[in-house]
């Protein structure tokens, strides 16, 4: 049983190989770190794991679903946290939580309550980095994909996530 499976999965963009053939399995509840050669590779791998990018060759399965065929099912299982912080100058935290809750069709009151708990668990982490994680964990995903997260707060992030976690980092981070 696996929640994420990569089999010879590659990602090619504009004729350049970004992700070399990747092979790994992630079981439910398991935490895994994947080191990538550079930021572009890390971002592509994280997006492939969260069904936001399609493998050029090989296969990726999320839960029992193929992102090429059933991307919506995959996105209900996997949650993606981007590397970039939330631009709080453009959207405040409460509005962001309401926005995420609406997109994932979560009861707004339950979303606010859960967001408060998660934010408390991530205390110390700057809001711009904490809220994307809070937002990703709102719909109770089975897999959390972190694209180059803040290493200093990794213990808190892992404690807050009650699901499988894939941490994609650049080598040496």
């Amino acid at each position: 049983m696996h929640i994420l499976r990569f089999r010879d999965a590659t990602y090619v963009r504009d004729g350049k190989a970004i992700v070399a053939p990747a092979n790994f399995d992630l079981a439910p509840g398991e935490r895994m770190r994947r080191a990538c050669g550079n930021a572009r590779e890390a971002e592509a791998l994280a997006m492939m794991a969260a069904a936001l990018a399609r493998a050029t060759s090989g296969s990726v399965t999320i839960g029992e679903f193929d992102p090429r065929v059933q991307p919506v099912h995959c996105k209900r299982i996997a949650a993606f946290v981007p590397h970039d912080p939330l631009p709080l100058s453009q959207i405040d935290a409460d509005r962001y939580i309401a926005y995420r809750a609406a997109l994932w069709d979560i009861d707004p009151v339950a979303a606010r309550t859960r967001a408060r708990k998660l934010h408390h668990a991530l205390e110390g982490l700057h809001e711009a980095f904490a809220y994307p994680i809070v937002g990703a964990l709102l719909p109770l995903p089975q897999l959390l994909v972190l694209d180059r997260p803040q290493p200093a707060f990794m213990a808190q992030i892992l404690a807050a996530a009650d699901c499988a976690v894939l941490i994609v980092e650049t080598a040496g981070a």
Partner: protein
Amino acid sequence: MTLRALRAVVGARLRAERRSLAFACAGAAIVGFVQPHGITAVTNPLTADIATRSVWLAGPMFFCSMLGIAIALLQGPGRHAFLDTTERSAPLFGRELARAKALAPVLYAAIATLVYWAAQFLSGFAAPPAFFLLALACVFASTLVALNATVTTGLARVLALLGATATIVVAYVLAVYADAYSTKSGDAVGVATELIVCAGIGFVALRQYGELLARLR
């Protein structure tokens, strides 16, 4: 897609581009006020009809459609990366997301067109409501075609922009000439022709936008 999700996507996009809306409305108001509306004296009723339509429709159709195209191009990736990433990671089908994302620039363009009309009205040259409908249909169609340029690159992007410009020209020609030459059958024929053509172009453009969004990178 739930109505709540639709409102969330449209609301977030509208809020993110509220400054652009203010500029678009200000531009529409100024051009609506200063646009010339008079025509030279002519005795032939058909020539007068065409001259009136061409002068009264040129401003709103060309200017407001250009505003719509500019607003559509602002929806491109990178400008609001967090919105793009969140929308893409949400469990929504490409076509659903396309409809929601398209609604924001279309609403913006509609507001700008309304402001243009209000400015015309206040300056004492209120065009008939059918002219507003004709201009609005052209603005919607060209905005939807231009949206395709935000998810394509290279030649495909150039073609999408050319398509948006061609849509304005076709809609204008239909609005001015089909309307004027269909006076025997009533204005409805000319109005309906332009509306049907714009609806067709808009529908195809929206479908294409949905297909492009559905394709993962």
